[in-house]
Structures are given as structure tokens and as C-alpha cells.
């Protein structure tokens, strides 16, 4: 495919993984942020992950809800130099692919990063985009940019289809 080379900073991934581990066995969620100037050129380099509280009031081991006011607040706080380009959330003990539940609630344009957090072992992630014409998620490759001290060896070069 001819997708532009989008990327995720290793430091942002480290934040997401830490958030996923500490929230286990509940789901965690947060925002993905990229520089606005690059986004306007069609390049999405996710530099930062901002955790936000899971507002789900039930089934928190398999549900997450983001406070819309919090989303609006973050969007304003990072503007105009950066844009909120996606959402991450974790699937404790479930694969790193969107569920049907995710699909029905998905928004266009956002990059959806799903982090699978097993009870033991390293988390894995998948990145996806929701197509508003087919109502389906499509995998989206994300290159990991920059090293991070917490990097486990190998096995997560990109986010394509962890099934």
C-alpha cells in the first residue's frame, strides 16, 4: 500500500504501555497527539500520549469512556501547534484488535491504538483507522520512532494486525 509513513514515538508508546500495565485488569485510555504542521501535510507523527481517566461506571475491565469535556480541554490546550489525532485504549487479556463494540462507536480520521495487556508478558499493540464509507476498521502501520529505555527486545516493529 502507499500509506504515508506514519509513526509513533517510542517515548509515547512507553507511556501507553505503562498506563496499560498499571490499569490492569481494567482498561485505560488516552489521547494521541501529533504536530499540527505535519498533519496538514498528511504526515502523522505521534509524539505524545496523554493519559485520561476511564469514566466507565461499569464493566471497567472491558469498557472505557472518555469525558468529552476532557477531550475538548486537551484539544484546546495543545492547539495550535499540536492536534489530537487519535485515541488509545487497552484490552486487558484480549487481542490488540478493535472489538465490534469499538467499531460501532468509532470516529473517522482518528488513529485508534489498541494495546493488548496480558497478565504476564509484554503488551502488544495494533493501530487502526475507521473507514466511514465501509464502517470497518483498517490496520495502519506505525513506525516506532526513537529508542526508549524500557523497550523490550523485538516483536513490535509495527502495529499491523496482531491476530
Amino acid at each position, binding site marked *: 500500500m502507499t500509506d504515508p509513513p506514519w509513526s509513533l514515538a517510542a517515548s509515547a508508546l512507553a507511556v501507553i504501555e505503562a498506563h496499560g500495565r498499571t490499569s490492569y485488569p481494567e482498561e485505560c485510555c488516552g489521547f494521541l497527539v501529533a504536530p499540527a504542521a505535519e498533519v496538514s501535510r498528511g504526515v502523522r507523527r505521534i509524539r505524545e500520549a496523554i493519559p485520561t481517566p476511564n469514566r466507565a461506571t461499569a464493566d471497567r475491565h472491558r469498557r472505557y469512556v*472518555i469525558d*468529552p469535556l476532557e477531550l475538548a480541554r486537551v484539544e484546546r490546550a495543545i492547539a495550535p501547534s499540536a492536534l489530537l489525532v487519535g485515541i488509545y485504549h487497552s*484490552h486487558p487479556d*484480549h487481542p490488540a484488535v478493535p472489538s*465490534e463494540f469499538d467499531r460501532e462507536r468509532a470516529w*473517522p*480520521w482518528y488513529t485508534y491504538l489498541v494495546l493488548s495487556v496480558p497478565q504476564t508478558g509484554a503488551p502488544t499493540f495494533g493501530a487502526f483507522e475507521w473507514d466511514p464509507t465501509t464502517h470497518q476498521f483498517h490496520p495502519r502501520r506505525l513506525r516506532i520512532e526513537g529508542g526508549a529505555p524500557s523497550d523490550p527486545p523485538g516483536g513490535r516493529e509495527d502495529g499491523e494486525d496482531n491476530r
Partner: protein
Amino acid sequence: MMATGTVRVEIPTPLRGWVDGQAAIEVEGSTVGTVLEAVAARYPALRPHLFGPTGALRGFVSIYLNQEDIRYREREATPVRPGDVISIVPAIAGGAGEPATVGLSREEMQRYSRHLLLPEVGLRGQRKLKEARVLLVGAGGLGSPTATYLAAAGVGRIGLVEFDTVDLSNLQRQILYTTEDLGRPKLEVAAERLRALNPEVTVEPHPGPLTSANALDLLKGYDVVVDGTDNFPTRYLVNDAAVLTGIPNVYGSIYRFEGQVTVFGGRAGPCYRCLYPEPPPPNLVPSCAEAGVLGVLPGVVGLLQAIETLKLLLGVGEPLIGRLLLFDALALRFRELQVRASPDCDLCGPKATQRGLIDYPEFCGVSAPGAPNASEIPSILPAELVGRLRDRDPPLLLDVREPEEWAIARIEGARLIPLGELAERVDELTGAREIVVYCKMGGRSARAVAQLTELGFRGVRHLDGGIDRWSRDVDPSMPRY
């Protein structure tokens, strides 16, 4: 300071692509509802992301007026004042695990509720339909109703093979198209209509004709093929490709007031070749364009095909395999004939020798689908005929169409002898030194030339492309039909 009544509407990043990339836009209105309506009116493509099919705000869209959730005010009726800020905010939620709705969204549940009530369909069946892939060959008289109902029923992927454009004479029966669509590619219009009817369905357009080169690859991607073709070469091609790829072929055909429907059962047969091992001689069976067809007839036949397709996908009921259903609209009578898988069938029988696709136009004795074998029948072009008719010794011009067609349009000076009466009225032509025969498209006239030549007439030619081409090439005032 803003002008009176102007309100700022903040657009979240996922929706900015529908408002030319703007982060906020300014519109006028007196309530939150009228403001959002004004936004949707200015950017129509944004509407489905804000409002559901019933016109109410979508459940996953939160609206804030100056940081306050409108659900705690008067919702859409909440009044606004100049300078207010309305924020459209995505309500983000999701999660892992057992899907709450077994694969159907709330909207789909509502859309298919009358199916879900049927124990034979239910949630499980509707899921099957959603995962199903059906290929329709032809999006004309038969394909229009079939595609429409399969899309409405929620068949997940619908492939369409079609290369024609919309013509005025199609609209009497091809209900996917409207007068506004004249001249547009059928495939483009059909995809638009089906997507509008059911956005949950993926329409896969395959432009260009089905050929021996592409048929097997194309059929491989589908669970069922529906034959809505109007010519023998393509009909044999669809049949052979379906048997070779092992998928059922839901067959329908129409002629004037009569229709036929059956299901060919893939590799196990029976197949179209069990029924008709050989095609009829070229031009013996006139097409709809020549013979006419009651506009409603393909509706009935196409919908019987749609029913059989759904039954196959759901695995319910008794499929029409091994039975040929005959429908006579004038008598309004259905009859049924048995179709057995022929033990001698060269394609699906136990001693089958045909392992691949062949050259179908050649097999059917035509150079192109529906065209007569031009090389053997002497013909004359409309432009040349115009000149010959002005000569001192013009040829005898013979019209072999039916009186109904004659009443619509005719070439001046012609004599009418319908093809069916030609043999017994051939005496009327005695003495003619040169004859030019015409019909509507050139099919019947080609047969008339062959017939007359066999009877000993010399100098017999037919008008290439028939009166239809005549009206295109030399006399645009001539009605086409």
C-alpha cells in the same frame, strides 16, 4: 464583537475534513438546534456524522454550549446568544470482549428488525448475510431488482459486473436508474443507489464485460453468482465459471411475457449445459431489444432470483436446485420442470472433459455478444443505403419487423413482411433484382438474408445495425425504441 445572532461552532479534529479543515465556523441561529442545522446545511457531507437517520443527534456526539452539556439544558431547543460557543465533541467509548450486540450495531438491529423477528433469519442469519458475498452479472432488468433487494436485506458485499450506460429505453424496467441518469455509466449510478439505500453494504463495481480471461478470478471471491445476462455467450460463461469455481449460479431469463428461474448447484450440478448442451443457432432467439419485454417481468424474475440467493446464503428452505420454474405473465401461471444433472454433461458430469473456460462468442457462433456473424451476411451501411435509395433503380427495401414496430418508425418506401411470414409471402418479392432487408438491430434481417439467399434470391443484403443505426447515422428524427 460578533454580529447579532452569530455563534461560533467548534469542530473536533475528526470532523474537520468535512468543513474544509476549519477548527471553528461561524453561523447564525437562535437555538442550538438551528445552529447545528445551519452547519449541516452549509456542509452537507458532515450531516451523517452529526445526525442519525431519523434526524436526531447521534448518540456518540456531545454538544456543549459554553462548556455546558446541552442535555442538562433544553437540548437542541437551548437558546443561544450572539458570541456563544457551541462545541461539538466526540463522545469516545469502546472496550474489549464479547461484543455487546453480536456483531450488529444498534442501527443495524433496527434496520433489519423484520428479519430478526423471523426465526429462520434471526441474529445469526443476519450475521451470515452481512458476511456474504454475492456477484451480480448484469445490472439491467434482472440485476436492478435483485441488487436493490439484496442490498436492502443486508448482504455484506455485492459485486456488480456491468459496462453499459443508462439509455432511455432501459427505464421501462431497470429500476435502479432514473431519467436524470441518462448517459451515465450504470455501474456508477447503481453503486450510488445501493449505498444510499444501505450504507452498511459494500458495493464492489467491476467495470467491463465478464470474459474468459477474468471470470474465474472474479467468481472466486464470491459465495453465489446471480446471472442477469441477456445473451448466450455470457450465460454459458457464467455457468461454466460457476461450475469450475464450485459456487451456485442463480439463473433467470426473460422473454416477452415469460420468465425462467432455476438454481444451478455448482460442481455437483445440474448446470446450464445439462439443460442446454448447445447454444441455439445465432439470431434464432431474439433478444429483449428485438422481441420486447413486459417491463414488470424482470421485476418478478429478478426478485425470485433474490429470494433464492438469500435462501442459499441463509441455508433455509428448499432451494430451486434441479427445478426449472416457468412463469407465464399472460396466463399468470407458474409451472415447474425437473432439471437433472446430466450424466453426460461435459462440464459437471462424472465424465466431464471441460476443465477450463473456452471462447464463448465462437461457441455461440457470434462475433460479439448479441451481434450477428457479420462476416457471412452481406450488409450495407446506412450512409450507402441513403445514396442507393435516391438512385434511378433503388433496391427493394424490405422491413422484416413486426407491425407494432413498423408503427413506431419505418424507412420511407419500405415494404413490411414480418420475418415469421417471409417464407409464405416470398412470392411478393419475385422479380426484385436487388433487396435490402432491415429490422431493428440487424439480427432478424441477417436471418432473412440467409433465408432468401437459400431460396435463390441474388443481390440480397441487410442494413448494418438496423433501423436503430439508421436513426443514429442518417435520420436523428427517427424515433428509437
